[in-house]
């Protein structure tokens, strides 16, 4: 006999909308402690390394920002689609396509100097991401193929394409046969915000994009269109919006921002393309988008939270020998608990005794 029961709320709870991301983080911490404890690690220590250590040490903070910026950029792009029920799961592929397109510009200009090179690389990155996202958009609008499947599958194509390029045509001729491209020259590398800092230009760009996205989503007809298509497709048609147009717009926006994140990462922390470049940011960004409630400001915060798990995961590997997969596990648990606790937005938990008494009254 269950003691608790879910009861539908008269209207969705606003408080819970803000509370469940925090609740999900708390549950992830608790479950992580138990799971790693059972596996024979120091459970509490693992959680401390992953969630607390990166925040406790100010020297780690620039690193957090560096990890957060691609997550935030990709997640904002994905969230625009998610708002319109366009489920672009292929942020990772678009991120790689952007990096590849931008790198193509870098390799074509590697003997040249000039302030124009970086903007052109950025533009190429955006276009590369858009091109990759255009394939699911075309298949969905033309043949009705689910963008969930196509965008996801295209990620594997992008990964293999990148592997091919760094091992074949783009391999550094002076690189002792290592599978990697040339290092970008100074004009092709993202400048740091201040001398000697890890914090590169990509971080203010991510914040700027978040602000722009906020304005577009809340104040413009395009943002309204995305919202209406997501909430009530029939009403959107009635209001004169075209679902086909919305699918194209949101997928191109998502692809473009992921592509921008890709080239910023290639021209920033990496400075070249290597087989280690696909780090799963595109997947983690899905968690970021939902944890941030598909809202640009929320996504900025959620991007930092997930960045903590990346940095903390690395710390835990060296400090207590936690496997690398632990990071992915924590990120997955976070999404899992978030989706589970979201039920509290529309339902409340009531003890069965109370529910019975109310029904009888």
């Amino acid at each position, binding site marked *: 006999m269950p003691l608790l029961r879910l009861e539908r709320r008269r209207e969705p709870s606003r408080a819970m909308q803000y509370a469940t991301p925090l609740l999900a983080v708390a549950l992830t911490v608790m479950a992580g402690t138990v799971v790693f404890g059972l596996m024979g690690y120091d459970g509490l220590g693992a959680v401390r390394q992953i969630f607390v250590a990166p925040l406790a040490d100010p020297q780690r903070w620039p690193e957090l920002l560096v990890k957060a910026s691609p997550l935030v950029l990709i997640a904002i792009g994905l969230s625009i689609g998610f708002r319109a029920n366009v489920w672009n799961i292929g942020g990772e592929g678009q991120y790689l396509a952007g990096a590849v397109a931008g790198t193509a510009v870098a390799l074509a200009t590697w003997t040249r100097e000039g302030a124009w090179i970086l903007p052109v690389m950025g533009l190429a990155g955006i276009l590369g991401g858009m091109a990759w996202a255009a394939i699911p958009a075309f298949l969905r609008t033309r043949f009705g193929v689910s963008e969930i499947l196509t965008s996801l599958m295209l990620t594997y194509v992008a990964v293999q394409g990148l592997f091919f390029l760094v091992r074949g045509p783009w391999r550094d001729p002076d690189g002792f046969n290592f599978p990697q491209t040339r290092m970008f020259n100074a004009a092709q590398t993202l400048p740091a915000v201040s001398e000697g800092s890890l914090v590169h230009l990509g971080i203010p760009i991510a914040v700027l994009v978040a602000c722009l996205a906020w304005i577009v989503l809340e104040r413009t*007809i395009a943002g309204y269109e995305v919202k209406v298509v997501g909430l009530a497709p*029939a009403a959107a048609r009635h209001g004169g919006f075209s679902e086909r147009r919305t699918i194209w717009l949101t997928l191109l926006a998502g692809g473009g921002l992921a592509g921008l994140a890709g080239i910023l990462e290639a021209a920033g922390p990496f400075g070249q393309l290597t087989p280690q470049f696909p780090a799963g940011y595109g997947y983690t960004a899905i968690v970021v988008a939902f944890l941030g409630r598909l809202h640009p400001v929320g996504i900025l915060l959620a991007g930092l939270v997930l960045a903590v798990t990346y940095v903390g995961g690395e710390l835990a590997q060296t400090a207590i020998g936690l496997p690398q997969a632990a990071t992915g596990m924590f990120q997955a648990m976070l999404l899992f608990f978030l989706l589970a606790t979201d039920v509290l937005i529309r339902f409340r938990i009531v003890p069965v005794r109370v529910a019975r008494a109310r029904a009888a009254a």
Partner: protein
Amino acid sequence: MNPVPVLHAARLQLSEISKSFPGVRANEDVSLVVAPGEIHALLGENGAGKSTLVKIIYGLQAPDAGEIRFDGQLVTISSPKTARALGIGMVFQQFSLFDALSVIENIAVGLDGAMDRKALAGRVDAILRAYSLPLDLDRAVHTLSVGERQRIEIVRCLLVRPKLLIMDEPTSVLTPQEVERLFAMLRQLAAEGCSILYISHKLGEIKALCSAATILRAGKVVAACDPRVESTRRMAELMIGAELNAVERRDEGRPAGGAVRLAVRGLSLPPVGPFSVPLRDIGFEVRAGEIVGIAGVAGNGQSELLLALSGEVAAPGPEMITLDGRPIGRARAGARRRRGLCAVPEERNGHAAIPDLSLTDNAMLTARHRLALTLAGFLRFATARGYAGRVIARFGVKATGPGALARSLSGGNLQKYIMGREIMQAPGVLVVAQPTWGVDAGAAAAIHRALLDLAASGSAIVVISQDLDELLAVSDRLAVLNEGRLSRAIPTATATAHALGLLMGGVHGEPVPSHAHGTPARVPEPAHAVA
């Protein structure tokens, strides 16, 4: 109250059943008798009270007053389980089946008591064979056609050897072949002594199948007849009601013969989904200052016609729809609004309005084209809020203000808001479906007044409605939409119940004799009975 004679030979006898819901008398003193082995039609328009009545018989609703006798015994049917124990089975329009389970599992789940699976399969098999119903017991339900799913529901009922089987509009989802098979089975059941209560508004079917009919209108029994001898035209008249002429007509003060604002010519549309009705060769014109009513029972192409006119579904050719002489058949909803054609669909939640957004945001949905609620791609919230406020004030919408969520409004209030949102844009052409659905009488009168005023100002209006009284009250001309075809429009002044019955009967494919019932010569013949 007069004592009602008890008919001991009757399978089912209802005596003066009444049932009210807040604001509606769903059934009022309904009496009917179903003999053993009789296929009895329960006939009426949507909202006539058919569903409520059978829910009472099946124990889903308790009557406020009246008696039910089953095989001569006075009974109280408090639940479907009681009904099944008496020998009453019912096949609903919506099936309750688990898609992932097999046919036999679904049947087992629906049983009132536990039963050995093998014995059950044997009995089901015997039933299927006895009525020559093909059905593979091990197939998963999600792989079955709608007709096959209905067979599962029928078998569920037959397992308890029913004495009375209630079928709620069973053919609305079937193909003609499946209908034939169903009818053969029902006739066989009836021949074995099972009574059948058959709910429908499809007159042709009732004529083919039933040996008795009770006709409901507005919750009351208006007639009982034998459909085999009664003409479909006469039954349509009874269904619509004979008191049509008593409805107060609108004043005829407006000048006729304005310019044609909306013209539809040869509009045909293929069905867009499995349950959608194709539109066939629709043609009509609406002039400035004129209101044209489109009558007919729901599900005959009303929603498809509205979508085609509003621009949510594009017409095959641009010339099929013209607005003030300009072809707009291929234009989208937004472009049509900008040129002066506004529309209100029947479904409020999620179609005419977005429940989760505020009234201001909902004003943005359809009023932004004509009222400059956007500037260079940005939303002008203050302007939209002002407009929403004016709509709320003029149409007496009960809401906390423009910031209220659409879902927080009652259905009638939301309808007032939606109607006001379109009318106050002063569109050149307004197409509305069910303008007063769920709205109280006072508000309905206000909406009708607003429609008449809009027409008086030179707009052309199309009202698609199932409520004939409403159409007679506001429209200048009337046409009937049936099975995707539109009859020719007749002046409302000549639209007697008889003339409308003629239009509907003709559409139902019955040959129309020119001398029928002394029809006056001026009553036009239905267009496609001739075609």
